[in-house]
């Protein structure tokens, strides 16, 4: 396994990567936990508890890496005392409905899984050492998301419309979350095995079959052996530090 080139730019990029992995995991865990007693079925309530425990465990395994990467950040390295989180904006608040839970599971948790898979042979060994275990635990999350998207879509009518709306709302930000195409710092340093454009393609390959089978109106289409987006991503709203989209009404502010 190669060693990470310790340039300031690479170290900053690694810290940024760990922060956005940890923060999104942390909020997924918190919000999944809120559905332990409110999910549509007893089985899905139990699953919500298990998934919350997994996500919080993943976050707990990641935050200590921030302490070693940026000790000068002090309390900002701890989830309990951080003041700036690098989570996607749709995890700024609890899920208002079950379809929000499912959309977040399929989209941002699926995107996180794509990145962990790209880190299995990472030159940043502490990340590689955690990736295999995270991927083991995420297999059931992916099955849960796939099953629930298909189930809700099959219901038709307002239920189909609700899961479609939830996915549409979170879609652009999730695709942006991998980063801009010209940001190859992590791939060049061997921290991840692919640049953002390839990670986006892998994510599309993972989620598009479910979306297609469920007949959901998401802007993708077949392209050769893979998939492509049919609408441009809103990079004018992209926050390249926190890896999230700014609200449309805050552009330029």
């Amino acid at each position, binding site marked *: 396994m190669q060693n990470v080139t310790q340039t300031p730019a690479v170290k900053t990029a690694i810290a940024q990567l760990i922060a956005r992995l940890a923060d999104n995991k942390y909020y997924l865990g918190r919000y999944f936990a809120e559905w332990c007693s409110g999910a549509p079925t007893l089985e899905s309530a139990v699953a919500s508890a298990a998934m919350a425990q997994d996500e919080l*465990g993943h976050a707990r395994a990641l935050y200590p890496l921030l302490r070693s990467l940026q000790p000068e950040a002090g309390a900002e390295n701890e989830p309990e005392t951080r003041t700036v989180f690098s989570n996607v904006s749709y995890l700024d608040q609890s899920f208002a409905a079950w379809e929000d839970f499912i959309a977040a599971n399929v989209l941002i948790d699926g995107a996180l899984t794509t990145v962990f898979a790209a880190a299995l042979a990472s030159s940043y060994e502490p990340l590689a050492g*955690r990736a*295999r275990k995270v991927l083991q635990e995420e297999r059931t999350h992916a099955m849960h998301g796939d099953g629930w998207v298909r189930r809700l879509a099959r219901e038709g009518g307002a239920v189909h419309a609700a899961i479609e709306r939830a996915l549409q709302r979170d879609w652009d930000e999730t695709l942006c979350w991998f980063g801009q195409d010209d940001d190859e710092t992590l791939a060049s340093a061997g921290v991840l095995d692919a640049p953002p454009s390839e990670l986006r393609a892998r994510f599309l390959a993972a989620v598009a079959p479910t979306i297609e089978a469920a007949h959901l109106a998401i802007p993708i289409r077949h392209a050769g052996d893979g998939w492509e987006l049919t609408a441009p991503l809103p990079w004018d709203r992209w926050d390249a530090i926190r890896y999230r989209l700014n609200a449309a009404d805050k552009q330029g502010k």
Partner: protein
Amino acid sequence: MVAPMTSNTSRTSGVSRESNACAVYPHNELWDALREVEDPELAISLVDMGLIVSIQRSGGAVAVELTYTAMGCPAMEMIQDDIRSRLLRIAGVTSVDIEVVWEPVWTKARLTSEGRDALLLSGVSV
């Protein structure tokens, strides 16, 4: 598989396997001590659960590599406290350093035959 014990510095680690695919771990003072420490949620020793990855002793210092079945295990601190407490009761052991590792990934292949039987008796399918 298992490194031989030497007089004052030793490192032992699993996993060797029996023909039925259950794991086998060393028998020595350190491993046997942890066979007395049970998982707080199940009446199964940490060794039989396959949570102990390696134990290294150098003089009075013992270093343990420990894994868990899940990254969100709620009993992490309790298990580490129990390990530390038991090892410090061994004559000559003055410090215990525990490192949590996620490689190798825990799977049921890390269970010993005793661990597998105990889980089945507890109603857990393996």
